[in-house]
Structure formats: C-alpha cells, structure tokens
C-alpha cells in the first residue's frame, strides 16, 4: 500500500473494515495520489456505503456514471461512482473515497443511497437522466436538467451523438 494509506489510521481502519465485512464482494481497493477508490460488487453497494457512513464519511460530493462501452477494453457496463467525503470528522476531511460499482448496461438498476447519504438525492437524479441508471427507492426520481420533452437516449451514453457533431 502506498504512503497515503499509511498516513491516516482512520482511513486505513475504514478500508480494513470494508475488507473484513464485504469479503469477496470487495473487488479491489486503489489508494494512490490520483484517487482513493473502492470497487464493490453491485449487490454490496448499500452495505459498503453504510460502513463508510459509520466510519465517518458523512456526505457525498457527487455521483458519477460512466458508460464503459467505448473504452479500448470495452465492457458492456455502466460504472457508478459515489464520491464520499467527511465534514464532521476533521481527520478524514482530506480524503475522498470513491465507492464504485458496475451495473449491466442493458438494465442499469441500483438501490438508491439517499437513505444513507441524503446529499446524494440530486446527484442520483442527474445520473438517472444522463445515463439512464434507475435508482430503486429514490424519493423523487425524475428529470432535473434535461427538458421535459427529451425523448432520445440518455445523453451521456457513448452511443448518443450530439446533433451537428458527427
């Protein structure tokens, strides 16, 4: 593990706890200068988020969806990332944990994490309209930025071609 991991015992404890509880469902942990990333199986997302919340990551800075189909090693999946941060715990404040999972591209359904992180509400709505990810249990899953009459595929999917940019 790199120096960041050793630098903060609290962060190390949180990652250790994830490893212990999730077991095989934790698919990988990256800790380096570029990013702190935790990959979990899609079934373990809620559990992982609850652990992170318990360990002090009290809010999300955003939710990102990535369509992986156009990568060089193409995958028929949508990657979902929750950028979790800490406000109340000063020791964890310098770190942002990126909790990531992969959803099948044909049926991207994921449980909503609004109950764990209320701050995810609008970010999940944006990911819903921009990438077509359906968040089950979201209190108000409807369009946010796109117009009401938008009827094309979700625009941040890689197969959406913006008009005039062919």
């Amino acid at each position: 593990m790199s120096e960041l991991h050793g630098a903060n015992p609290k962060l190390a404890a949180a990652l250790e706890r994830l490893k212990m509880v999730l077991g095989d469902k934790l698919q990988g942990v990256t800790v380096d200068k570029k990013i702190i990333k935790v990959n979990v199986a899609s079934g373990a997302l809620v559990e992982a988020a609850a652990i992170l919340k318990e360990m002090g990551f009290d809010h999300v800075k955003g939710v990102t969806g990535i369509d992986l189909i156009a990568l060089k090693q193409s995958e028929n999946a949508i990657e979902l990332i929750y950028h979790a941060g800490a406000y109340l715990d000063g020791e964890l404040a310098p770190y942002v944990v990126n909790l990531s999972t992969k959803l099948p591209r044909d049926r991207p359904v994921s449980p909503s994490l609004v109950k764990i992180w209320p701050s995810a509400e609008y970010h999940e709505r944006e990911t819903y309209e921009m990438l077509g990810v359906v968040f089950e249990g979201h209190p108000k899953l409807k369009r946010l930025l796109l117009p009401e009459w938008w009827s094309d595929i979700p625009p941040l999917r890689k197969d959406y071609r913006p008009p005039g940019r062919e």
Partner: protein
Amino acid sequence: MQEEGQESREIYIYDTGEGLVFSYGPQHPGTGHFRLIVRVLGDTVLEAEPDPGFVHRGEEKMCESKTWITNVPHLERPAILDSAGMLYPYCLAVEKLMGVEPPPRAKYLRALMAELNRIGSHFYYFALYGVFLGLPTPFLWCFGDREFIVDLVQFIGGQRITHSYFVPGGVRNDVLARVPPRLVQHFRTWYSEATGKRPSESELTDDFRKYALHVADFIDCRLDYYWDLILDNAIFISRTRGVGRLTPDEVAALGAVGVTLRASGLRRDVRVDEPYDAYSDVKFEVPVLTEGDGYARAVVAFREMRESLKIIRQLIEGLPDGPFKLKQHPINIRVPAGEAFARAEAAHGEMAYYVRSDGSDKPYRVRILAPSFRNLIVIPYTGRGKRIADIPVIYWSNNFWPVEWDR
C-alpha cells in the same frame, strides 16, 4: 426522436394539491435562469422545489469531443466571475494523471488568480444580496470596486473575466513586470479618495508588485465601508437573521459547501484540509460562525474577502522567479490512461472534478462536481415553513450561480 408535434410535455407542477403554486423565475429571479416552484398556503411556504436546467449546455458531453487543452475555455464558463475556481481542479486532476507538477511560479500565479476571482465573485454575492432585499446601493458599490480587481485580473491574465489563464502544467502566460501607466494614474485617484493616503511617485509606481499591493490595500479599506453599508444595516440584519438556519449535523448530511457550510460551524476548506499549489506556503484563517443563518453566511463571505487579501499580499511578496509553465505541446498534451479525482476551493465552495482518460487525445469522461449544485438541496430543506418574503434570502444566501449547477 419522436416526430414533430408528437412530443409529450409533462407540466406536472401546476395541477393539484393543497395551497397555491407559483413559479419564482425562470427569467432571472435576481440572477441567472432558474426556477423555484413554490407551493404556499397563505404566506407560508409549504414546499420550495428547485427546477434547474434552463441553461444546461451539456459541458460534460462537450468535454468528450474536445482535446485536453481545448476543454479549458468552456470549462471556465459555468461561473464566469470565478473562472479560476472553476478551472482549478480540472488542471489539478489532469496534472495528477500526467504525473507532473507545475513550476513554483505557476503555482503562485494560479493561487493569486484564484484569490482575485474569489474577491470578485464575493463582490457579486454582496451586490446581488442587496438587490434581492431591495437595497440597490450595494450593487453599484460592489461593481465599482470590483473593477479594480478586474483590472488586475486583466493585467495578469489578458482578459477581464473568462481569461482561460490556467492550463494543465502551469499558466498560459507570465505576468508582466510593468503595469501600463494609464492604469496606475487612474487607480491613484481612487486610491487616495478611499484611503485618504497620498502615495508618492516611488511608493505607487508602475511596478506590478507595488501596484497589486496597493489594490489589495484599497479593497481592504473599502471593505470597512461595506460593513457599514450592508452588514451593519438594520434592514439587512432584520431580513436575514434567523432565516434558513442549518445546524452542523444538517449541513454535513446535506453535503453543503462554501459559506453555507462554514456559517454553520464547520471549519472545512479545501485550501486547508488538502492544500494544493501555493496554499501550503501561505498563512490565513478560515472564518467560521455558528449561527448558520442568512446573516452568518454574509459575514463569513465578508471575512473570506479579508483573508483572500491576506493571501494575495503573501503571494505577491513571495512570488518566485522561474518558468511559468512546463515545456509541453501548446495544444496537444499526452495524458496516460487512468482516473483521477481533484478538488479545490472555488468562490462558491468546494469544486471537484473526476477525470478519466483512456490514453487518447481527448478525455473519456469528465465529471464536474459544481459547488452550487451541491448546495441546491439546501433550498427545499430550509424553505419549508418559511414566509414568502424569506425566499430571496433562502435562495441567495447560499451563494449560488445558476449556470454553474446547470453546466
């Protein structure tokens, strides 16, 4: 795409339910295209739901069809008064991916530009705060004084607002040593007027450092007037105190940023928590209040301007010599495959980028995590149960910028 004439429009909000529904906006309710759908019963707000998206331009999609450098000019557009703050984390993220660090002079110039933009943006905050409450004078004052900041920004970056000054690997151009004498002459009159001091020809010359330090002095002096005009104003206090109150636990749960966060007693500032570029070399305070209301947010913003001036003085005095940019291709830089997350403290709050590269000349995915978007959730949360006259304070006290959350 559906055929023309067949498109279905779902206007869901004006129909049923208790109370009366009205639309606050979308034609510039104070600033920016934004609609707040408010449901009221008598004078009491039952629900205030934000409806953003009127200026959504699909920046994230745009990023995927432009190269790493040609993304710079449009990425600073979300908040033009704070274009430095908007761009900062993008450059940091791309540099992380490339595994490079800009030269020291670039680090200082970037921080300097970011602080100047922060002051400019906070001036705008106070200008519009006044307008929202029916006080037009702050608008004129703020824009008048902001002009001297803008002059300095133009001198450093070449443009008044959207200067595209930052690039991954440094800054676009170095700062010149001599300020045009015309600018100094113009400034000298106003400086004497505001501060009562008459600087001699050797004190205030066309030397960049001397000029910039005097501009900082001038703004510092003017801020005293602002305290009397806005923050010590009985009308302002009575309209904002106790409105939109949030406790530390609430702001943490909502993930609010910027003045909203710091007015509620949480000392969180990326410049301190995770210092980037020159911020590890400068000393400053993070202003924090515990009231968490509309007034406390204004006071925090006011004190932040003072702290920014402190930082500006230290940066100018410690500005190192040397190159201002890494040696690289001006348009086409190589970014290895990978992903990076970077953040910086913009004027409106914590700004972050998630950037993914697949090794080609264009980004695979750029995620813009804008501070205003994160604060959006504060409006419905604090709006409930307030009075109609409190809506402007609930909206504007959080230091919003509609174009920024629409992207």
